[in-house]
C-alpha cells in the first residue's frame, strides 16, 4: 500500500506532461509495438483474454514489427513496465479528469510529440510494406488493399489530430470538447488515434486490467475474486448478445446459393470503411464519402459520380452475398459445421465485436454492464438505472414482461422487490440484508464527498480495511462494481451531476473513488 502511494505521489510531482506521456505510451505499446518484454507476456497468460490478445498481436506483427526497435519512446520499457502496470490506471484517470476541466499547454506539447511519434510509425509501416511487397503470396490484392486502408486511416487520424490540437486553442471549441464531446472521441483526439483505433483501445484495456489486477493481488486478495465475478457477468452478457443475433436469423438459405465473404478482423474493426482517395478521410457510409468527394472538384459533382454504385450492377442477377466471421470455431464462421451466415457487413461488425472482442465500454451509471459495441452501450445507458425489474437471481430487466417471461421460464426464480430506488441499481439485491445495503450506500456517500474535498486518504484506508470482511460489509454487487471501476479504460465524465448527488454516487461511484484515490494520496504527500 505505502509503496504504491509513494509511487503515485512521485509521478504526480513530476510534470503533468510526463505523466500523460507515460500513460499514452502505456496504452499504445501493446498495439503498436509487439512489446516483447517479459512483463507483457506474463499478462497475456490470463486465459480469458488469451486468444484475443494473441490475435491482435499477430495481426500487428505483420505491419508493426520494426516499430519495436525504432520506437521513439523515451523510456526503457523493461524498467518502466512495472511502474506502468501499477500506476497507469490512476495516471490515466487523473489525466482524463485534467483534460475535462482545463486546457494546458503541456497537453499541446504532448499531442505534438505524439504526432511526431505517430508519423514515425507510419513511416515505418510504409517501409515495411515496400520491403514486403515482393514476398507476399496468397491474396496480394487483399493485403495491399488492407495496407492501403491502414495507411489512409493513420493519415486521417494524424490530420484529425492536428486539426483538433489547433482547435483546442480556441476557447469555444475547447469548451465544446470538454463538455459536449463523448469521451471516447476525446481520447481519439488527445490520446492518439491508433491504427486501427478500436483494437488499439481494446488491447490497452487488457493491459490495464492486467496491471490493475496484479496490483490488486498485491494489495488485496479480495479484488481478485471480485474480478472473476465480473468476468462471469461478462460471459453471461456475451450469451445474451449471441441469442439476440440468433433470434433475428430467420432465413434458411441452402448452402451454395450464396457467396460467402469473409472480412479480416482489422477490416471489421476499422472505424471507417470508405476512404477518400484524395485526402484520406474515412467514412462509415459510402454516401457520406460521395458527398465529401464533391469538395475535391467538379468531376465528383456529376450525377453519375453521386449515384449509388450498386445501381449499375443491379441489371445483372446478383449472387446473394452472405458473410462469414473470421473467428474460427465460431458458428458464424464458414468452417463451422452448422454455419449460419451473417446477412450484412453491419451484422458482421456487430457480431464480431459482441462475440469476439472485449467489452470495453462500461456503463458509467451502473459500472457493471459492459459492451463492445458502442451503440449497445448507448442503448443501455438510455435505460440504465431504469432497470427496476429484478429477479431473485440478480438479473435485471428494463421491462416487466421480460422479467415475467424469465420467471415463467426458470423454476424457482421469483421477482425481487426493489428495496428503494436508490438501492436497486444493479446486481442481486438480497432483501434480508436490507440494512447492510443501506449502510453501504451511506459509507460510499461520505467517501465520495470526502474525496471531492481532497482529503480522502483516511476513508480509503477505512474502505480497504473493511474489505477484509466482505460478507458483513459489502454486498457482492459492490465488489464487482468497485473493483472494476478502477480498471476502467474510458472513464466517462464523472456524471455531470445533473441528477441528485445520491444517484451519482450509485452510478459513478466506483471509478470516481479510484480516481480520487490517486489525487488524495498526492495531496497527502503535499
Amino acid at each position, binding site marked *: 500500500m505505502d509503496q504504491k502511494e509513494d509511487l503515485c505521489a512521485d509521478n504526480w510531482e513530476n510534470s503533468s506532461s510526463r505523466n500523460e506521456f507515460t500513460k499514452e505510451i502505456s496504452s499504445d505499446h501493446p498495439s503498436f509495438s509487439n512489446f516483447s518484454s517479459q512483463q507483457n507476456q506474463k499478462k497475456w497468460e490470463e486465459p480469458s483474454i488469451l486468444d484475443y490478445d494473441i490475435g491482435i498481436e499477430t495481426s500487428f506483427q505483420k505491419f508493426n514489427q520494426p516499430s519495436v526497435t525504432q520506437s521513439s519512446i523515451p523510456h526503457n520499457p523493461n524498467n518502466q513496465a512495472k511502474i506502468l502496470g501499477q500506476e497507469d490506471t490512476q495516471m490515466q484517470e487523473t489525466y482524463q479528469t485534467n483534460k475535462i476541466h482545463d486546457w494546458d499547454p503541456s497537453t499541446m506539447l504532448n499531442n505534438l510529440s505524439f504526432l511526431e511519434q505517430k508519423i514515425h510509425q507510419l513511416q515505418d509501416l510504409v517501409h515495411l510494406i515496400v520491403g514486403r511487397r515482393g514476398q507476399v503470396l496468397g491474396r496480394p490484392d487483399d493485403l495491399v488493399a488492407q495496407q492501403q486502408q491502414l495507411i489512409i486511416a493513420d493519415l486521417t487520424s494524424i490530420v484529425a489530430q492536428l486539426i483538433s490540437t489547433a482547435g483546442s486553442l480556441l476557447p469555444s471549441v475547447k469548451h465544446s470538447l470538454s463538455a459536449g464531446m463523448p469521451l471516447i472521441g476525446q481520447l481519439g483526439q488527445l490520446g492518439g488515434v491508433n491504427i486501427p483505433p478500436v483494437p488499439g483501445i481494446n488491447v490497452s484495456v487488457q493491459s490495464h486490467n492486467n496491471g490493475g489486477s496484479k496490483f490488486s493481488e498485491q494489495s488485496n486478495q479480495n479484488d481478485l475474486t471480485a474480478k472473476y465475478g465480473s468476468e462471469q457477468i461478462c460471459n453471461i452478457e456475451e450469451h445474451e448478445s449471441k441469442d439476440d443475433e440468433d433470434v433475428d436469423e430467420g432465413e434458411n438459405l441452402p448452402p451454395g446459393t450464396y457467396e460467402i465473404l469473409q472480412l479480416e478482423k482489422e477490416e471489421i474493426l476499422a472505424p471507417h470503411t470508405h476512404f477518400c482517395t484524395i485526402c484520406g478521410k474515412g467514412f462509415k457510409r459510402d454516401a457520406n464519402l460521395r458527398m465529401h468527394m464533391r469538395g475535391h472538384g467538379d468531376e465528383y459533382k456529376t450525377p453519375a459520380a453521386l449515384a449509388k454504385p450498386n445501381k449499375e450492377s443491379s441489371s445483372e442477377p446478383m449472387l446473394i452475398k452472405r458473410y462469414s466471421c473470421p473467428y474460427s470455431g465460431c458458428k458464424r464462421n464458414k468452417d463451422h459445421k452448422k454455419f449460419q451466415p451473417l446477412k450484412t457487413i453491419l451484422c458482421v461488425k456487430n457480431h464480431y465485436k459482441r462475440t469476439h472482442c472485449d467489452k470495453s465500454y462500461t456503463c458509467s451509471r451502473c459500472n457493471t454492464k459492459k459492451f463492445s459495441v458502442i451503440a449497445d452501450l448507448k442503448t443501455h445507458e438510455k435505460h440504465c438505472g431504469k432497470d427496476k*425489474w429484478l429477479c431473485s437471481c440478480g438479473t435485471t430487466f428494463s421491462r*416487466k*414482461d421480460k422479467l*415475467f417471461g424469465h*420467471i*415463467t421460464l426458470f423454476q*424457482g*426464480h*421469483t*421477482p*425481487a*422487490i426493489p428495496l428503494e430506488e436508490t438501492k436497486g441499481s444493479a446486481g442481486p439485491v438480497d*432483501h434480508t440484508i436490507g440494512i447492510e445495503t443501506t449502510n453501504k450506500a451511506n459509507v460510499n456517500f461520505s467517501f465520495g464527498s470526502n474525496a471531492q474535498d481532497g482529503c480522502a486518504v483516511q476513508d480509503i484506508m477505512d474502505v480497504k480495511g473493511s474489505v477484509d470482511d466482505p460478507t458483513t460489509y459489502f454486498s457482492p454487487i459492490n465488489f464487482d462494481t468497485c473493483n472494476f471501476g478502477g480498471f476502467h479504460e474510458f472513464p466517462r465524465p464523472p456524471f455531470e451531476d445533473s441528477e441528485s448527488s445520491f444517484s451519482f454516487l450509485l452510478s459513478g461511484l466506483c471509478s470516481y473513488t479510484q480516481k480520487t484515490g490517486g489525487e488524495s494520496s498526492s495531496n497527502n504527500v503535499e
Partner: protein
Amino acid sequence: MKKHETFHLSNKNMENPFVIFTEEIIFSILDYLNDDPYAKRSFSLVCKSFYFTESRHRTALKPLRSDLLSRTFHRYPSIAHLDLSLCPLVDDSALTAVSLSWKSTLRSINLSRSKSFTSIGLLSLVTNCLGLVDIDLSNGSELTDSAAKAIAEAKNLERLRLASCKSITDIGIGCIAVACKKLRSICLRWCLRVTDLGVGLIAMKCKEIRSLDLSYLLITEKCLPPVLQLPHLEDLALEGCLGIDDDCLATLKHGGKAIKMINMSRCQNVSHMGLSSLTNGSESLQKLVLAYGPAVTADLTKCLHSFSGLQSIKLDGCLVTCSGIRAIGNWRASLKELSLSKCTGVTDEGLSFLVQTHKELRKLDVTCCSKITYASIDSITISCTSLTSLRMESCSSVSKDAFVFIGQRCQLLEELDVTDNEIDNDGLKAISSCSKLCSLKLGICVNITDDGLTHVGNGCLKLKELDLYRCPGISDMGIAAIAQGCPALEMINIAYNNKITDLSLTSLSKCSSLKVLEIRGCPQVSSVGLSAIAMGCRQIAEVDIKKCYNIDDNAMLPLAKFSQNLKQINLSYCLVTDVGLLSLSSINRLQKMTILHLAGLTPNGLAAALLACGGLTKVKLHTSFKPLLPQYIFKYMKARGCVFLWRNKPFQAEIDPKGWQLQSGRCPEAAE
C-alpha cells in the same frame, strides 16, 4: 376396565356425572352446540372441568378486541381458525404472538378488517405456522409487495384472499405465484395494480387453482389462455374487467374444461360472441353470472343452449328481449336459480314460456320487473311449485290477487320479498300457509293491516326476518301476533310507523333471539319499550332508534346493563344525554355508533364516552363536534383503530320528510 372404575367412583361421589364420559364424547357433544354461539359459553361456565374441556375443544376463535388476544393464548391451546375481523388493530407483535402460541394448530386466519400489521408480522406468522392454509388479507390497502413476499413463505397456502389490496403489484403476486404451489383459491378482486403479467404467472405456476377471482382487474386477453388452461379451474370471476372484449375472447381456442362457474358481470364489452368463445368446451358449466352485461337476446341464449349442466344464471340489469327470454325456455338444462332482477324487458309472455320448461326452479328473482302482471305470477306458481325463494320487490303491475297464488301453490317458500307491492290481507293469509317461511319482506306495502299480519303470526312459526318498513296499516296488535307466533324472530323492521307504541316492544321482548331491531321514526315508542327489549332480548346486537323522540337515558341504562351483545346503535335525534351515552360505553362489544343531532349531548360527555368505550371502530358524528372535542381524542381513538365519520346533515324537524316521495314514486329503478 378403567372406564368401569371411573363409573363406579363417580357413582359413589355423585359430584360430576360427566366424569364418566371421555373427553372425546364430550367433544362430540360440543360439536352439536355450534348453532348457538352462547351455548358453549354457558357450558364452560358450569364448572372448572367443563371450562377446561371447552378450552381444549374450541378450535375457532373470533376475538372481540386485539388486546384481549393475549389472554386467549393460554386458555385455548388448539385454535385452528382465527377470525380477527372484529379487531381493527392487529400489530406485528400481536401476529407474532399468535404465530408462536398456535404454531402447530393454526390453519386459517382472517385479517380482512385489521390494519397496522406489516410484512414483518406476516412473515413471522407464515414461518411459524406451517400448517396455515387459509389467509384473508382483504382490504389491506397498506399492504405492499413485501407483504406479498412474506406470504410467499407460506408454502402450504391453499386459499388466499387479497381483495382490495391496491398496493400489491405484479411483483408481489409473482412472488406468491412462484412459491405457493398448492394454492387452490385466490381472490385478487380490486387489486388494481395487478396486470396480465401477474395473473398469467399465477396461472402458469399454480396448477392446483380451483377458484380465481379477477374482478375489476385491468386485465386483457393476454392472461386468459394460461388461466383457461388451468386443469382444475372451477370458479372464474371476471366481474368488471373492462379490458376484456369480444375481439380478445375470439382469440381463445377453448375454454376451461373443468369450469363450473363464470362470473362476467359488468363486462360491458363482451357480447354473446365473446361468451361463446369463453365457454367453448366448458362442459361442466353450472353457474353463469352475466349481471349488467350483454343484452340477453336470442343469440346469447342460443349459445348457452347446449350446456346441460347449467343450474343457475344471473342476468340482473341486462337488457332483455322477449325472444331471448323465450329461448332460455328452450335450453337443454333445467335451471334451479334464475335472477332477472331489474330486467325491465321481462314480459309476461317470455317469463310464462320460460317457467314452463324450468319446473325445477328453486330461486327466482324478478325484482323491479315492472311489466310482469298477474299472468306471470300465475304461470310461475303453477310450474315452479318447489320454489323456495321468490323476490319480486316493486313488481308494481302485479295485482293483489296474484299473491294468493303464491301462498296456495308454493308451499316450500322460505324467502319471500314482496316489498312495495299491492299485496293485501288476503295475500298474507294465503302466504301464512307457507310454514317454512323464514324471511318475509313487506316494506312499503300500504294495503296490509294487522289482520293479515296476524295470519302470518299464526302460520309462519319459523319466521326469522320480518320487514315492515313504512307499513302504515300495522299497529301493536299485529306486532303482538308476530311476537306470539314467531319465537325464532331475529330481525324486525318497523321503521316509520306512527301507530307503534311501547306495547309492541314489550310483546317483542318475548322473542329471546331477537338480534336486530329497527324502529326508526316511531315517535310513540318510549324508553319503557326499549327497556323491555333490553331486558328480554339479551342477544340484541343492532338497534336503530333514530328519531324516536321519546327515548331518553332511561332506556340506555338497561341497554348498558343487559345488552352486552350490542354491536351497533343509532341514537340520532333522541333525547339521550351524556349520562345515557356514558352508560352505553360500558358495553364491551359496541363497535358502531351514530350520534347526530343529540340535543342533550355536550362535547365533554361525548369525549368521555368515546374514551370509555374501548371497542369502537366507527363513530358517525356531526361536524359541529369536530372543533369542540380535544384533539388528543382523535389521536387516541385512531390509535385504537376507531374511524370518525363526520356528517354535516341539517337538522330535520319532521320525522319523515321524504316519506311521501317514496310512497308515491314507487321503485325509482322501475320508473327509469
